[in-house]
């Protein structure tokens, strides 16, 4: 037992150390895209008609004429000290904007992940245990459609039906303006309102969260259905399940303790990869529902060609992704001991 914990600790440490080159790589990549590509932020903002002398002066002030390696190290320094410039659109530091919007995106992605896991693993298991029968085909069709639906369009339909026509749920936003927001602890309205024991606020936050997380969750569940189904089929046809059956273990127990348990390991592994998908989807979902998170920030920044904001968003999304992939890898190592060795 002791050896196993030690190897898990060793794995976590290596993984954390590996995070550094990944981060540097990602930041370098962003730097190359933003600096080496034709065009620069100043000329873009001031346009062709801008006074060349003014543009020149601003460029010198921003250090755009310095050698690239100087710019590169200054950029790394700025990223790690949180100096990502000022948003042209809101005139606030980009880092502040990101901090105030990140919780909304985290709230949305986590609740969507919940919807996707419950729907995807449930339906995938249902289909996998009824292979090649009608329920299997129905579920596979659901999986294919859900995965391929344009998320923006799907969100619009849900919004039109459940918010506009039926009026069951709020049309957009994160919180009703008539209620006062709970004191900020985590920034997640659902958790903050629970901490403040403010039930009406909690109900309001959840109501605003339902449609966006259903949109994103259902789309992602298409992927989970596929992965779960294949792995359940694979596990239930494996030798260890046959061996368990041969030992006379009741089918129920064979299914849950031997089949499903092993089938879910690769599902958890792939869950980590789906976070990238989730964040992509969140950009579109937040736009449909005017959900003031990072995705909506990216959309607004793009619409107004707000380059410091775009750059900041890309960088911090990248850092978030690296941290998430680290957590997923550690979770995987915890679930599947083979990974540690």
């Amino acid at each position, binding site marked *: 037992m002791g050896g196993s914990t030690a190897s898990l600790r060793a794995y976590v440490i290596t993984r954390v150390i590996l995070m550094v080159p990944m981060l540097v*790589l990602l930041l370098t990549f962003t730097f190359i895209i933003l600096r080496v590509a034709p065009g620069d932020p100043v000329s873009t903002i001031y346009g062709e008609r801008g006074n060349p002398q003014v543009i020149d002066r601003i460029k010198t002030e921003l250090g755009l004429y310095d050698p690239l390696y100087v710019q590169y190290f200054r950029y790394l320094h700025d990223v790690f000290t949180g100096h990502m410039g000022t948003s042209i659109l809101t005139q606030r530091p980009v880092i502040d904007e990101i901090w105030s919007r990140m919780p909304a995106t985290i709230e949305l992605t986590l609740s969507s992940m919940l919807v996707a896991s419950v729907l995807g693993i449930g339906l995938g298991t249902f289909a996998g245990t009824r292979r090649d029968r009608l329920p299997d085909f129905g579920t596979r069709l659901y999986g294919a459609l859900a995965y391929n639906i344009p998320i923006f369009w799907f969100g619009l339909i849900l919004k039109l039906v459940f918010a506009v026509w039926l009026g069951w749920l709020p049309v957009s936003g994160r919180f009703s303006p008539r209620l006062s927001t709970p004191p900020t602890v985590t920034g997640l309205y659902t958790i903050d309102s629970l901490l403040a024991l403010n039930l009406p606020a909690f109900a309001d936050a959840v109501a605003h969260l339902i449609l966006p997380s259903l949109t994103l969750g259902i789309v992602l569940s298409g992927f989970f259905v596929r992965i779960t189904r294949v792995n359940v089929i694979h596990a239930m046809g494996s030798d260890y399940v046959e061996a368990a059956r041969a030992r006379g273990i009741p089918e129920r127990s064979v299914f849950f303790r031997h089949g499903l348990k092993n089938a879910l390991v690769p599902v958890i592994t792939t869950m980590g990869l789906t976070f990238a998908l989730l964040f*992509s989807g969140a950009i579109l979902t937040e736009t449909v529902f005017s959900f003031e998170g990072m995705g909506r920030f990216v959309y607004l920044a793009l619409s107004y060609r707000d380059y410091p904001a775009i750059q900041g968003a*890309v960088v911090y999304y990248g850092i978030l992704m690296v941290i998430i992939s680290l957590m997923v890898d550690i979770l995987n190592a915890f679930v599947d001991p083979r990974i540690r060795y």
Partner: protein
Amino acid sequence: MADWFARGRTSLVGRLFGTFLRQSRSIAGVLVWIGIAVVLAIIVMALLAPFLAPFDPNTKVADPELPPGGPFVMGTDRGGQDVLSRIIWGNRVPLAIIAVATTISLALGLPLGLLSGFAGGRLDRAILLVMDSIYAFPGLLLAIAIAAVIGRGILNVSFAIAVVYIPTYFRVIRNHVASVKEEPFVEAAIALGLPRRRVIGRYILPNVAQSIPVIFSVNAADAVLTEAGLAVLGLGLPPGIPDWGFDISLNWQRFDASWWATFFPGLFILILTTALTFVGEGLNDILNPLLRRRETKVGAEA
């Protein structure tokens, strides 16, 4: 015909096609045929757009936001343009973009995967790290970042989408190569002292090529969605070119008043992506020998 292709071991394409024909009467085969038929129909629709479209897609032909009916089968949009005509025209350029983008991804991902999987060691780990970093990054955001910097335009959008999908090709090919490399016939070829290029070209590539059509169709479906996502966010093609995604971005704010102008373009995106996925999944069932073996095993038990 199927036997002829199966026997004709002359070419890679012939061999793949032979396997495909022999297997295509299964359910997976039916899926592939439906998928191919729909994709072809959409391509034909794009090619024949000038003859099929009842109206010019870029001119105001009636009052804005007329509901479906009469001469306007799918109604008119905010600008009084015919929705059906815009849909018929609206996949020409996106289809071209997706073809270009997936080809670029393949052209870069395949050699990198072959190299990385075959060479192994430090080079392999270095390329893997780069590719994994790209892969872990949200695809749409990556495409947004690239498109925002290099600007609109057909080639720019193609390039932005291509970068997103290089790691997918790379990953599958690399893992496949790494496992094929351990097979006795490859080891024998290396032991015989054949030049590396020949070992890869003659012994490894034909054995990993079966995954290419599968990734290609699945990726194409993803690329359609990414292209539409970029268009919806206003980063797609220059205005004036009919595009399903762009039409959604034009009309979505009026969705509750004139749902048809947004609903039909989205529906066509869904039809195209689902058809492409059918092709990919069906091909996977047919061409992937591992899955097939499992199939026969399960069949024998039942």
